C-alpha cells in the first residue's frame, strides 16, 4: 500500500501515545474507538444490493449481483457466494495495472473465509432445485479511496450490501420430468437475506506492547503484526488471521481476541441499528450517492 517512510520520531510519538496510561492517539481517539463512519445502501440501481461505506478517508463501494447458476457438486443443495475485490487505481496510483492484486486477493480470501460456514449466511435458502439451479451471489468490493483499515471497512460494506440485497422470488413448476423456473415479474415480490448473524471483521493492530482498532495509515506503518477477526453479533468468531511480519505472544493474542470480540459485538449491533433506521426512513431520505 501507499508506503510513506515515516521518521523514527514520528513513529515514537505514535507509539508513546498508545502506551500512555490514558491512551491518546494522534487524532485524540482511545485505543478502542472507530473513526466516523457513514453508510448508504442502495446506491447502484443495476445491482441486487449495494452499499457505500466511508470510514474517515477509506471509501468502499460494494455491489451484490444475484445470478442463476448450477450449484457446485460438493454442495448440491445450497447456493454460492463469491467475493471479488477490486483495488481501483483511483485510490492510489500504486494500484495501477496489477499493483493492487495482492491486497485484493488478501481481502477477498479473508472475507470468504469469514462467510465460509453455515451459520453466517443461510446459503441453503439460495438453492432453487438441488443439483440443478441455485442463486450465486457475486459480491464485488470496489476500493475507491484508502485511508487505513480496509479489511474492517470492506466487511462492513459487504454486510450492509447483503442487507440491502433483494432476490426475486422464483417458483418451480414441475411438468412431467421437466422443471420450469418462473421468475416473478413483480419488483416487490422479493426475498431478503438474513444477515443478523453475518460477521464483521475487526482488525487489531499491535503497536508496541498494546493494540488498537481502526488503525489509520500512519498507525499501520508503525504496526508489526495484526490480528483480523470475523466477529458475529453473538460474539462467536468465524475467522482468525494473523497478518504482518511480526509475531505475537500467546497472552497478547488472547487479550486481542477479547478486545476484538467486545468491539465486534458493538460494531455489529450499531451497524444493524443504522441499517434498520435507514430502511425506516424509507423514500423520504435524501440520497447522497457519491458526494462526500
Amino acid at each position, binding site marked *: 500500500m501507499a508506503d510513506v517512510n515515516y521518521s523514527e520520531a514520528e513513529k515514537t510519538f505514535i507509539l508513546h501515545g498508545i502506551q500512555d496510561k490514558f491512551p491518546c492517539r494522534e487524532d485524540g481517539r482511545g485505543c478502542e474507538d472507530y473513526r466516523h463512519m457513514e453508510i448508504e445502501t442502495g446506491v447502484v440501481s443495476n445491482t441486487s444490493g449495494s452499499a457505500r461505506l466511508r470510514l474517515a478517508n477509506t471509501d468502499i463501494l460494494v455491489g451484490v449481483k444475484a445470478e442463476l447458476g448450477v450449484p457446485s457438486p460438493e454442495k448440491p443443495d445450497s447456493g454460492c457466494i463469491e467475493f471479488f475485490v477490486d483495488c481501483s487505481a483511483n485510490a492510489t496510483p500504486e494500484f495501477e495495472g496489477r499493483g493492487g492484486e495482492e491486497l485484493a*486477493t*488478501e481481502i477477498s480470501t479473508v472475507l470468504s473465509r469469514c462467510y465460509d460456514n453455515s451459520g453466517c449466511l443461510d446459503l441453503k435458502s439460495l438453492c432453487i432445485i438441488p443439483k440443478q439451479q441455485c442463486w450465486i451471489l457475486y459480491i464485488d468490493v470496489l476500493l475507491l479511496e484508502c485511508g487505513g483499515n480496509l479489511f474492517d471497512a470492506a466487511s462492513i460494506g459487504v454486510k450492509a450490501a447483503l442487507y440491502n440485497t433483494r432476490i426475486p422470488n422464483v417458483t418451480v413448476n414441475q411438468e412431467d420430468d421437466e422443471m420450469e423456473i418462473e421468475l416473478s415479474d413483480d419488483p416487490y415480490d422479493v426475498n431478503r437475506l438474513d444477515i443478523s448473524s453475518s460477521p464483521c471483521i475487526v482488525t487489531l493492530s499491535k503497536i508496541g506492547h498494546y493494540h488498537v482498532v481502526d488503525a489509520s495509515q500512519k498507525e499501520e506503518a508503525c504496526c508489526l503484526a495484526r*490480528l483480523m477477526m470475523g466477529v458475529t453479533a453473538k460474539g*462467536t468468531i468465524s*475467522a482468525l488471521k494473523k497478518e504482518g511480519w511480526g509475531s505475537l*505472544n*500467546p497472552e497478547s493474542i488472547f487479550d486481542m*481476541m477479547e478486545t476484538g470480540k467486545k468491539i465486534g459485538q458493538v460494531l455489529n449491533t450499531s451497524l444493524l441499528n443504522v441499517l434498520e433506521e435507514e430502511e425506516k426512513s424509507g423514500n423520504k431520505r435524501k440520497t447522497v450517492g457519491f458526494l462526500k
Partner: protein
Amino acid sequence: MPLDSRRICGPESTQSPHIFTVNKDIKSDILLNGERKDGRKLDQIRPLFLRPGLISQAKGSAYIEQNHTKVICAVYGPREVMRKEDFSMKGQLTCEFKFATFSCKKKRQHQQDAEEKDLSVQLLEALEPAVQLDKFPKAQVNVYITVLQNDGIALAASITCASLALADAGIEMYDIVVGSSARIHGDVMLVDPSEEEEYRSQDCKDVNEGKVVIGLMPSINQISALTSKGEIDFETISQAIKTCIQTCQKVYPVLQNALVNSVKTKT
C-alpha cells in the same frame, strides 16, 4: 509452474467420481463411539517423520511425513534480488506453496489456484518473523513447498517442514517455527486432524465446528501464524489455541533431534 499453452488441459469442469458417492452418513460424524476412526486418542498426533537435506541441489531442504500427509520443501538463496524495484536494506523471503496435481482427492491444476496463493501468503507470514532478515540485505531467500500427498492440514505440516529446510540451509533464524492444528467438533477437540476429520463448511451445521492452525516459535514463546475457519465461540477457540501450543511444544524436540541427527550423519 508456468502455463504451457500447448498442453491440452482437458475439459475444465471434470469432477471426481467420489463426490457423488453417497457416504454422507459416514461423513456426518467424525467420531465413532467417542473415538477417532484411526484409533488415535483425541490429543494424539500422528506419527511424525522428518528428514532434512533430501534435495541435493537446493541450499536446504526437508521432508515431512505424517501418515499420509507428505510434504517436501526446498530453500534456495540467499541470492541477489534481480528486480530493482524490490530493492530493500532488509532481506526478502518468498514462499511458493503448491499441491502436486495428484496430491488431493480432487485434481489440482498446474497453476497456483486461489487457495494455494492464500496458503503461500500464510506460510510466508508464519516464517518471516523467525528469519533474521537483516542478516542478508538486498538478497532474497526462496522457499518452495510441494505437497506430495495430502491427508489433512497440509499447512501445519508445511510450516514445520519449511522451517526445518531453512535451518538446514543455514539461514539465520531466531527460532524454529512449528506448525500444528486442531479440529473443533462441538465440545471435543481433535488434535492433528486427518483429511477425513478436516473441517468442511458444507458438512457442518452447528456453531463450534471449525479448525485452527498455528505456527509457534517454542523457545521464545511467540506465535507467528494463526488462522481459523468456521464459527466458533470465544472460549472454545482460546482453548483450541492453547491445545495447539501444547502440541507444538511436544513436536519441537523431534525437530531438534532431526536437525542434530542430520549433522551427526554428515560428519
